[in-house]
C-alpha cells in the first residue's frame, strides 16, 4: 500500500538520503503526508492572515466593528476549517498507526540476529558469525562497525552499558532508544548495498556528538568473505584462550605460592 501511495508523493526525504531498509518507504510516505497537509494549512493560514492585515488596515473614515461571533455565518469561519483540519488529522493518524505497527510492534521472523551494545561513547556490535546464531564462539564483535547482509531480515537486540542512547540509522529511517537495564528488540531488512552513517540520537554526555559508527551493507558474497576473514582465527584463538584459562585455574595447586 505504501509503495503505491509513494508513486504520488514528492519523496522529500529520498532527495536527501536513499532508502536502504524495507520499511524506509513507509516512513518517507508518512513524512510526505504530514509535510504536505501541515504545509498546506500553514501557508493557507499565513496567507489569509496577511490578507486580513492588509484588507482591514487603518484608513481614515473607517471605524473598527465589534463582532460577537454568534451568527451562523460568523461561526462558519471557525467550523469549516476546524472540520477540514480534523479530516487531515485522521489522514495522518491512520498511516501513523500502520507504520508504528509495522516497524515497532510486529517483528518478522529473523534470518539473522544481531546484538547492539551502546555505551559512552561507542557502539559494539555482536554479529552472529558463520553459524548465524548469537552467543556462540564464532560471533564477531566489532567496535563502531556494523556489517550486514543485503536482503536479509534482521532482529536486533539493543542494550546500554551506562546511560540512555539512541540507535539511529538515517538511511534505514530507524531510530530506537537504548535504556540501561533493558534489552530492546526490533527489526530491519537492508535493501541497498553501501556504507552509511550510524549515530547516537540521544544526548548521552560530552562526546555524544562524536558517537558515530558506520554500517556496511554487503552483498551475500562480500558478507561471506567478511565472515571468513574475521571469524575463524580470532574465534578459535579466543575459544582456546578461554579453555586454557579455565584449565590452568582448575589445575592450579593452592600450595603453588
Amino acid at each position, binding site marked *: 500500500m505504501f509503495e503505491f501511495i509513494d508513486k504520488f508523493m514528492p519523496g522529500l526525504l529520498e532527495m536527501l538520503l536513499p532508502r536502504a531498509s524495507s520499511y524506509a518507504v513507509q516512513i518517507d510516505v508518512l513524512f510526505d503526508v504530514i509535510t504536505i497537509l501541515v504545509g498546506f494549512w500553514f501557508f493557507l493560514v499565513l496567507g489569509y492572515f496577511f490578507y486580513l492585515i492588509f484588507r482591514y488596515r487603518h484608513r481614515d473614515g473607517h471605524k473598527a466593528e465589534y463582532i460577537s461571533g454568534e451568527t451562523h455565518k460568523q461561526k462558519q469561519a471557525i467550523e469549516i476549517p476546524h472540520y477540514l483540519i480534523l479530516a487531515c488529522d485522521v489522514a495522518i493518524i491512520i498511516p501513523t498507526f500502520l507504520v508504528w505497527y509495522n516497524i515497532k510492534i510486529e517483528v518478522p521472523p529473523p534470518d539473522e540476529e544481531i546484538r547492539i*551494545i551502546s*555505551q*559512552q*561513547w*561507542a557502539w*559494539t556490535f*555482536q554479529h552472529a558469525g558463520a553459524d548465524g546464531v548469537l552467543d556462540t564462539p564464532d560471533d564477531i*564483535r*566489532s*567496535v563502531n562497525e556494523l556489517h550486514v547482509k543485503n536482503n536479509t531480515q534482521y532482529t536486533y537486540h539493543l542494550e546500554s*552499558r551506562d546511560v540512555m542512547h539512541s540507535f539511529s540509522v538515517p538511511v534505514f529511517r530507524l531510530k530506537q532508544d537504548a535504556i540501561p537495564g533493558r534489552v530492546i528488540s526490533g527489526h530491519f531488512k537492508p535493501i541497498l548495498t553501501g556504507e552509511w552513517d550510524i549515530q547516537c540520537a540521544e544526548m548521552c*554526555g*560530552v*562526546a555524544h556528538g*562524536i*558517537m558515530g559508527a558506520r554500517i556496511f551493507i554487503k552483498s551475500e558474497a562480500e558478507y561471506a568473505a567478511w565472515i571468513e576473514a574475521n571469524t575463524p582465527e580470532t574465534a578459535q584463538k579466543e575459544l582456546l*584462550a578461554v579453555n586454557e584459562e579455565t584449565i590452568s*585455574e582448575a589445575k*592450579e595447586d593452592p600450595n*603453588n605460592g
Partner: protein
Amino acid sequence: MKSSRSHAEPFSTKSIALALALVFSIFSSAAAHADARGEQLYRNCTICHGPDGQGIALQLAPALTGLSEKYLVEQLKKFKSGMRGSHPDDVAGLRMLPMSQTLLTEEDMVAVSRYIISLGSSPIEATLEGGDPVKGQATYATCTACHGPDGKGNDLLNSPSLLNQHDWYHLTQLKNFKSGVRGANPQDIAGAQMRPMSMLLTDEQMMLDVIAYIQTLGD
C-alpha cells in the same frame, strides 16, 4: 550642542602608550600561550578526569597528574589510532577513544599533557582491601626492571609512573593486560611488553598484593 569629546585630540599620548603596552603584553605572553592552549584543551577532559586531573572513579577515569609528558602523549596517540581503547570489553577505553579524536595535532597532545603535569600530583587514598604489601613486595621485584624500585617509571623504557594513582585503576589495567583487552594490538609494542608481565599475576589476590605494595611506595 557640541560634545566635549570633539575638542579632545583623536589619540592622546596616554592612550597610545596604553595600546602599545597591550600589544607588548600580548607578545610577551606568547610563551605562556602554549599553557593557555593546554588549559583550554583540558576543559574537555575535566568531566571525567576532574579539573585537578586526579581522576573520578565513577567515570572510570584515572589520575593523570603523576604521569610523564612522554607517556601521556604516547597514550593519547594510541587512543587516537585505536591501538588502545578499541576492544569491545574496554568500557573505559571506549570512552577515551572518541575523546582522543578532539586532539587534532601532536602539538595539542603535548600542550594538554604539559598542562596536566602542571596541575601537580598528590597521593590518592586506597579503596581496595585484602592486599598484603609484604607479599606484594616480592612480586614487585619483577616490575622493578621497568617501573623502577621506587615505582616512578622510566620514559626510556616507555613505562609509566605507578605512584599517585587510583588502586582500582591499577587492578583494572592489570586485568585488562592479562585478558588482552589492553596491549593485545600488534602495533602496541609497550603494551606487548606489559602483557606477559601481567600473566605472571596468576590470580586477583596477587594483583591486590602488588597494588598494596605500590601504594606504600608513594609515602
